[in-house]
């Protein structure tokens, strides 16, 4: 069963996965190009570090996009027929959804691997200053975790029925508005910062995006 669900996932997402993989493979090389034509010449440590600094935020955006993309296509296919087919299959709905989730999550590994390979290639070509080190594996793993988180969030929203998803989104929105209004009228900015801090530091859900996404670091 899972084999066939994975097969359909691959069939629907192969173009997206291919594009993502090419992009993640090529992106470190693009940044290397900028560093290679550095102002101070010969890959000074500062330029190498600064040159690759924007790679992290860009990969964060790619990770979120990857998660989104891998949910969108299968969802669209099932949604076009109002999920009649999966509902008519002889397996509990939660088992179907879990397999669908697993199939998409498995495909997220591919762009992470190509990112790792692209990073290795760049690190092999670049002369890394003695005070710095490359972290291709760590970066690729963070990318994978980031895309998994984005994928899970979008997946949950999509696969909840329309009313429940709308209620959940509305609840989150109302919660944010209430916190913001409370902070405004009471002047208690600590509440807002506290909420944000809990989200972006471990074990908050957004912590993986707040960590260091550096390919080259000390």
């Amino acid at each position: 069963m899972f084999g066939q669900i994975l097969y359909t996932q691959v069939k629907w997402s192969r173009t997206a996965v291919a594009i993502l993989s090419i992009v993640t493979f090529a992106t470190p090389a693009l940044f290397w190009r900028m560093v290679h034509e550095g102002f101070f010449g010969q890959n000074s440590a500062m330029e190498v570090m600064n040159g690759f600094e924007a790679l992290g935020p860009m990969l964060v955006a790619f990770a979120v996009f990857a998660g989104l993309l891998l949910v969108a296509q299968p969802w669209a296919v099932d949604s076009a027929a109002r999920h009649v087919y999966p509902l008519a299959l002889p397996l509990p709905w939660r088992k179907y959804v879990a397999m669908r989730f697993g199939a998409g999550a498995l495909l997220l590994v591919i762009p992470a691997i190509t990112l790792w390979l692209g990073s290795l290639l760049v690190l092999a070509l670049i002369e890394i200053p003695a005070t710095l080190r490359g972290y291709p594996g760590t970066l690729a793993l963070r990318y994978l975790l980031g895309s998994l988180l984005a994928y899970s969030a979008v997946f949950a929203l999509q696969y909840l029925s329309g009313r429940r998803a709308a209620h959940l989104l509305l609840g989150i929105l109302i919660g944010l508005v209430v916190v913001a209004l409370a902070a405004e009228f009471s002047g208690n900015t600590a509440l807002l910062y506290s909420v944000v801090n809990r989200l972006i530091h471990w074990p908050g859900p957004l912590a993986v995006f707040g960590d260091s996404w550096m390919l080259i670091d000390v």
Partner: protein
Amino acid sequence: MSDRSALLGLLFAVAATATRAQSVDELRAELQRAESRLGIAVARQAQLRETRLFGSDAGLRSGGRRVRYRTADLSPRDSAALSRGLELGVTRLREWYGDAGASLADTASLGVTSERRGAFRPLVIFSIASPNFTRVRLSRPVDEEEVARFVIHEAGDRLSARTPTLRRFAGYSAMLPGPREDAEIARRLATSWAAAGRRCAAGAIGACATVAEPIGPDSPLDLYFEPSDFRAVVASANRPAIADSVFYASRRRCLAGADTACARLVRILDPADPIGDHIRGSILTHALALGGRDGIARLLAARDTVPLAALARAAGTSEDALLSSWHTKIYAAVRRGPFDLVVPFLTTFGWAALLLAVATRRRYL
């Protein structure tokens, strides 16, 4: 206007008004009188600022400390938290650095105002008398911990202000950077455009001793820089006192890749500090932490010595040992081990599992 500039101005004024040749002692006496007048002027300036900001509102007193604020800006709850934060800061200074540390904050004259800009009207706490006019934004309701941290930070400023060698060494850097600052310091050191900084980052303690001394006008450049660094030196240096046409032409050639132009230019430049106050400030903090309760007292007693020697004395250890332990500490903040990603891995999978559980709720058409 900084007090240094004011002092120089006064000095020139004194020199300019000299109607006859004066002895060194006479000039020294004139300087002392000028300094005294400068001190009075600075105090008067602080008083005027205080009156302008707070009018006749009394504020509060806590030990030897005075905190001015407008009654309308601070609720009774916030002023109580402010008072407790002051106590907490002084208590911590006493715990870590003994009476010498506590005394740095004992006579603080602080002000608290409400910022009008922005939607959240945060408070700002600052040292009224601090030459650097250090300011920190506080959230509402006032958090004692934030106030305590400010007190310690401001005490660091006072420490630097009291010891001219330290002022030159570390500027007005924070007294207690945390692990995040350590990581940033490690990065700055590793990416320094001075070879000495990079050698220090790589673990050469001798190079750390070099960069611990700020670059002076007479400092030999080859102690800090290698020829490959010259272009960076030229790009970041202050403009020297030579004709514009000579300087800019040479600079353009250097930045375009002419190494000889760079080598010639660096001889006449006043290079910018490649290390920065923040990094030296962390050495200062580390020295005080090693020194314990007597650290500050020892540091203040060693005012006239070379900064690194003074810090080593404060730490109660040798210069090399101080730098070595400091290096280990900052690099511990960026050390990565094989298990660093275990927590992120497990946490992300935990959240993914939770979201999956939400998604698998029974669905109908």
